[in-house]
C-alpha cells in the first residue's frame, strides 16, 4: 500500500480514507484523532474524538465537558475501521502524543508537535519505528538551538535581583509553557509565591492534580492601596495580556517572554520584550535532525513551520522528504 493512500492532506486536516478519520482536524469532522490539547490542534465540535486521557481532560477544561459527541481515551492498539492506531508520548506538553497508524504493512507516525529535551511536565518522546515519519518544523532552521532551559530561568532570577522594584511579567502560553516555566523556576530554587493571570489558573490546577508540583501560586489581583505589592515578584500571563489594561496594575513591569522565538533578536525587539527566555516545547534543529537520523524512515513528511530547510537537509542526507502543506496550524504556536 502506498503511504498516500493511508494518509493525505485535506482542507480539514490529515485524512485517513481507510479508517475514515482525521488527525488534528482544523474544522469539525465526524471522527478525529488528536495529538495534544493546543487550540490549533484540538478543536471543539467533532462527532467523535480519540486522544490520550490527559488531552481529553484538557479539552474538557478548555471547551466544556460537551466538546465532542463522544470521546474515547487512547490505550494500546485500537482498530479504527481496519487501521491499527496507537498513541505514543511526544514530550511536547502534558498528554501530548504521536499517532501511529498501520495498515497492510504501511506504518506512518504523525508526531504532532514534539521535543526531545528533558521536561518533567511531559512524558518523554518515544521513538517509534515507521515507514513514514511526519515531523513538525516550527523551529526547522539550523539557527534554532534551544539552550539549557535552567540557564534561561537563571536570567530571570538574576534580573529579579538586579531590578527588585520591578514586577517581572513572564509571557507564557497557557497550556504547557506556563507549567513548564513554573516547574523550572522551582527547580532553580525559587520558592516564593508566583502570581498567575486568570487564564492560566485552570490548567495549572490540572497539572498539579496530575502530580506535577508547581509550588505556591496565587492570582495576580491587586489589593486596594497596595500598588507595590508586585515589586520584584514573578507574574505569569499570556503574552497578549501584557498589552492589555490588565498589565497596568504592575509597577514598572519588566516584560519577559518564554519562547523558542526569543532566540532571534529581531523577533524579541519586535515584540517589545526586555528579557527573552529561550524556552521551547518544540524540537530545535538538532532534535529534529537527530530524530530523523534515529528513526531513519523511508520517507519524511514535513509540516507546519519552515519546511523548506528541513526538506533540504533530508535531500542532503539522501532521505526522501516532501513538505506536507497543511493549513490552519499557527506559525506562532509555541
Amino acid at each position, binding site marked *: 500500500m502506498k503511504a498516500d493512500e493511508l494518509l493525505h492532506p485535506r482542507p480539514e486536516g490529515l485524512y485517513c480514507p481507510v479508517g475514515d478519520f482525521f488527525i488534528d482536524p482544523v474544522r469539525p469532522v465526524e471522527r478525529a484523532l488528536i495529538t495534544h490539547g493546543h487550540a490549533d490542534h484540538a478543536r471543539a465540535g467533532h462527532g467523535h474524538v480519540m486522544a490520550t486521557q490527559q488531552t481529553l481532560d484538557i479539552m474538557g477544561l478548555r471547551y466544556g465537558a460537551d466538546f465532542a459527541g463522544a470521546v474515547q481515551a487512547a490505550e494500546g492498539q485500537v482498530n479504527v475501521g481496519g487501521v491499527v492506531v496507537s498513541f505514543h508520548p511526544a514530550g511536547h506538553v502534558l498528554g501530548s502524543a504521536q499517532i501511529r497508524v498501520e495498515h497492510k504493512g504501511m506504518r506512518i507516525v504523525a508526531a504532532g508537535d514534539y521535543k526531545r529535551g528533558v521536561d518533567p511536565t511531559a512524558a518523554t518522546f518515544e521513538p517509534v519505528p515507521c515507514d513514514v515519519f511526519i515531523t513538525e518544523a516550527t523551529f526547522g532552521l539550523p539557527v534554532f*538551538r534551544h539552550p539549557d532551559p535552567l540557564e534561561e530561568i537563571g536570567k530571570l532570577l538574576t534580573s529579579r535581583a538586579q531590578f527588585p522594584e520591578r514586577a517581572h511579567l513572564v509571557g507564557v502560553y497557557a497550556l504547557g509553557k506556563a507549567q513548564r516555566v513554573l516547574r523550572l523556576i522551582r527547580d532553580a530554587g525559587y520558592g516564593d509565591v508566583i502570581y498567575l493571570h486568570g487564564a492560566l489558573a485552570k490548567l495549572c490546577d490540572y497539572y498539579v492534580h496530575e502530580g506535577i508540583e508547581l509550588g505556591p501560586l496565587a492570582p495576580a489581583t491587586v489589593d486596594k492601596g497596595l500598588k507595590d505589592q508586585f515589586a520584584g515578584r514573578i507574574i505569569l500571563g499570556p503574552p497578549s495580556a*501584557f*498589552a492589555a489594561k490588565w498589565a*497596568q496594575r504592575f509597577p514598572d*513591569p519588566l516584560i519577559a517572554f518564554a519562547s523558542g522565538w526569543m532566540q*532571534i533578536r529581531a523577533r524579541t525587539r519586535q515584540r517589545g520584550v*526586555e528579557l527573552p527566555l529561550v524556552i521551547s516545547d518544540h524540537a530545535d534543529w538538532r532534535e529534529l535532525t537527530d530524530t530523523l537520523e534515529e528513526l531513519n524512515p523511508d520517507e519524511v513528511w514535513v509540516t507546519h513551520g519552515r519546511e523548506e530547510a528541513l526538506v533540504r*537537509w533530508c535531500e542532503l542526507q539522501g532521505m526522501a522528504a516532501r513538505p506536507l502543506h497543511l493549513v490552519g496550524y499557527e506559525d506562532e504556536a509555541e
Partner: protein
Amino acid sequence: MKAFSSLLDRLVLTPARNGKIRLLKDYFRDVPDPDRGYGLAAITRDLEFRMVKPAMLRGLMAERIDEELFRLSYDYVGDMAETISLLWEGDGGEDIRLCDIVDILQKVSRIDAPAVMVDLLNRFGASERYALLKLATGGLRIGVSARLAKQALAGFGSVEVTEIEELWHGLEAPYETLFAWLEGRADKPEQAALSPFRPVMLASPLDEASLEEMQPVDFAAEWKWDGIRVQTTSEGGERRIYSRTGDDISRAFPDVVAHMGFEGSLDGELLVVREGVVGSFSDLQQRLNRKTVSKKKMEEFPAFIRAYDLLQDGDENLRPLPFAERRGRLETFVGSLSDARFDVSELIKFNDWSALAEMRASPPEAVIEGLMLKRWDSVYVPGRPKGPWFKWKKDPYIIDAVLMYAQRGHGKRSSFYSDYTFGVWTPEGALVPVGKAYFGFTDQELKEIDKFVRDNTVERFGPVRSVRAEADFGLVFEVAFEGLNRSSRHKSGVAMRFPRISRLRWDKPPGEADRIEALEAMLG
C-alpha cells in the same frame, strides 16, 4: 566574555535609561580590571578592530554549511553576526577574558585572522560568539551613548558626571586609574592631556515671575542661537571641538579646526554661517553626526563659531573670574581670529525687563531661540547652578492637531498607548500626519488617552492602532514645538522640532483643528 556578552544582550533590549545605567554599574562592580574597562571602551566604541571582514566570515561559513541552508537562515535572522553565532557548530562553553580577546584582535594580521576567528568561535557559546563577531567587525551598536556610559561611571563612583567628562579625554582603555579612583582606592587621576574638555556651564529656564526680584543692571543679555553648544580648545598644537557633553567632534569640522591657531578654550555656538548670514538648524544638521565630511558639504554648509565665553587664555584659567571680566578678555581674544570662522556673540543693551521682553518677542533673525541672561559677576562652574544663568526661550509654536495613530510604549508604559502620531487637515479634507510625540501629558491624562485609543480603535498594525479621527469625532491635541523644517521624508513635507503635547482638547471638534496651510505659513 560571558559577562560582556550578557551585558550586551540586556543593554540592547532595555529601553529605560536608568535600567541601562543599572546594568552598566553592576557590570563595573562585578567584572575585574582590565576587562571592565575594555567592555566600557567597546560599548562607547572607543575600541574598534578592522581585521575581520564580513566576506571572510561568509567564506568560513561556506566551508561549514550548505549554501541553501545558510541562505534560508540568514534570510530569517537578518543579521550576519547573529546568523553565524547561531549556526556555528558546538557549544564551546569556554569563558575567555575580554582583555585576552582584545589582545588577540589587536595583534592579529589579516592573514591569520580566519584561523584565529575559527579557534575563538569554536571555544564559545552562541551569545559570546555574537559579541565576538560584533566586536571584531566593528559593528557594535547597542544604543548606549558615551554620555550614558559616563553617567553610569559617575553613579558607580558616586561622583558628579562633570568630573568624569573633565577627565575623559586624558584617559585610555582599560581606564584602570579611573576605576581605582571611583572605588576609592586611589586619588583622582590627573588631567595631563593637552586640550582636555572643560565641563560646560548650563542655564536654567527662566521663571518670568522671578524677573521682579532680578535687577536688570546685574545681568548681561545675549541672543540664544539655535545651533549646538561647543567648546573649541587648542593647546600645544592639539585642536579639539567638543560637544557640550564632552564628545570629541573635531573630525567632522576641519573647516573650523584649520582656523584654531590660538592657545586657549572658547565656549560658543556652532552654526552654519554663509557670508555673515546664519543658516537654519536644518542646514547645521547637514554637518552633524558625521565622522568625516566632504569638501562639497563644507562649501555648502560652512561651519562657524559664535563665541560666548573664554575659559582658558594661554596658561591662564579664566573660569574663576566674573563674567564681566571674561567677556572683556573674550572680545580681545576673538578679535585676533579669522572673522570668517569666529565672532563674538553680541551683547544686547536694555534698561528694563519689558524692553528685553519686546526684543525677545521679535528677534532680528529666525534662527534665534530666545535670550540668555548671565549675571555679570558669575564665575564659570560646571553643571546647571541655580541663579547665575537663565535661558529665556521664545514661546513655542502651537497648533491643534488630531490624534491619528497610537503606539504602545516600552518598559513602564508597555501596556499603555503612549506614543502618538497626530495630523492636520489637507485642502482635500483628509488628515496628513505632521508629527509624533510621547510626552507633555500627566500620568492621569495618559490613562485617559489610553482609554480613548482602546475604545476607538479602527485598525491594528502590531503595536500600533489607528484611531477614529473624523471631522466631528476624535481627539485634538494642542501640540507645542520649537521649530519646523522642510522634510522630503514626511508626506506632509514638514518635520517638527521637539514636539510635545501641551494640552488635551477634549472640548474641540477635530474639524476645527489646524490645516496644513497654517504649518506651511510657518515655514516662511
